[in-house]
C-alpha cells in the first residue's frame, strides 16, 4: 500500500464528512446517542460513550457552522 499525502487528505475529508452528516433527530436519538442523552453523572470520568458523543457533536458544530439551537 503506497500512500500519498493527497490520499490521506482525501480520506480525512471523507471521514469528517461522514461524521458531519449524521442526523440528530433521525439517527442519533434513535440509537441513544443524542445530545440530550449525554448529561450523565457529574463525576470526573465521563466514559467512552459520552466522550464519543461530545466529539461527534463538536465535529458537526464546527463543520456545519450553524448557530446552536435550543437543544444545547
Amino acid at each position: 500500500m503506497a500512500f500519498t499525502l493527497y490520499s490521506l487528505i482525501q480520506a480525512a475529508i471523507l471521514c469528517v464528512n461522514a461524521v458531519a452528516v449524521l442526523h440528530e433527530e433521525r439517527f442519533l436519538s434513535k440509537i441513544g446517542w443524542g445530545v440530550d442523552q449525554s448529561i450523565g453523572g457529574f463525576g470526573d470520568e465521563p466514559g467512552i460513550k459520552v466522550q464519543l458523543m461530545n466529539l461527534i457533536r463538536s465535529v458537526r458544530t464546527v463543520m456545519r457552522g450553524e448557530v446552536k439551537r435550543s437543544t444545547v
Partner: protein
Amino acid sequence: TMDLPHHGYRATKQRARAAPPQADPVLFEDTSSSASAMNTQGYYTPGYNMGAPSSDMQGGAGMDNLFADPMANAAMMYGSSLANQGKDMVNKEISRFMSVNKLKYFFAVDTRYVLKKLMILMFPYTHQDWEVRYHRDTPLTPRQDVNAPDLYIPTMAFITYILLAGMALGIQKRFSPEVLGLCASTALVWIIIEVLVMLLSLYLLTVHSDLSTFDLIAYSGYKYVGMIFTVLCGLLFGSDGYFVALAWSSCALMFFIVRSLKMKILPSISADSMGTGSAKPQLRLYITVATAVFQPIIIYWLTSHLVR
C-alpha cells in the same frame, strides 16, 4: 514530587510549557543573532583601523578596505535589517501554528545523549530507571535526562530510512526518483495515522497525561531506528538476516515503548480513587500494548518490499 505527575495534569502541562522561557536561558535564547552582531562589529573595527592609516598613505585603496567604504557599510546595514525583518515575520507566522520554544526543547540534544538513546533503543533490557526527571515542574531537556523524548533522532532516522530505501531499491534495479518520494510520503502518512489514532484514543479514554503531540511524534518516530537496522541486516545478510534483525528490533522496540509509555499513561501508585471501576486501568493497558504491537507490524510493512 511523587504525585506531581498525577495531580493537576493539565495545570502541570500548561505550566511546564509556559515556564521554559525563564528556566533555561542558554537553551531558549537565540544566541545566533548576538553572535553575528559581534562578528560584524569585529569586522568593522579592523576595517576601520586598517582603512584609516592606509588611506592616509595611499589615498583610497578600495579593494583591501571593503568595510571602510561608507557605501558598503550602509548597504550591509540595510541588508541585515531587511533580513531581520524577514526573520521576525517568519517567526511570527510560524508561532501561530506551533510554539517554537516547545520545538526547541526537543532538539536540545548532544552526542552523549544520542549515543545512549540509540543503545537503549536497540537493547533496552538493562536500562534501570525509566522515569522522566523534572526540574521544578518543567521536564528536563534531553541533554540532561536520557529518558526524555527528543525529535532529533526520529528526524534523522526518517531521512536515513528514505535514503536507505532508495539505495536498497537501486540494488534491486527498481529505482526511479518517483519511488523515493512515494516511499517518503508513505512513511510520513503512517506516522500521521499512528499519531492521530493515539491522540484519539487518549482523548476518548480521558487519559490526562502530559503527552503532547510532539511527544507522540517522537515516540512513533523511534521505530525508524529499528527499521534502518533491519534493512541494513537484510541487505548485508540476505533474507535470514532480515528476519533475525526484524525479530530483534521488534522485541527491543516493543519493550522500549511499553516501559516508556507505562510511566506516562498508566497511573502507577495512585493514592486517589480515580476511575469508576476496573475498566479504566485495563483500557489504558490495552492502549499501551496496542501501540507496542503496532510497531513490528508497521516495520514489516514498510521494509519487506525493500528486501526480497
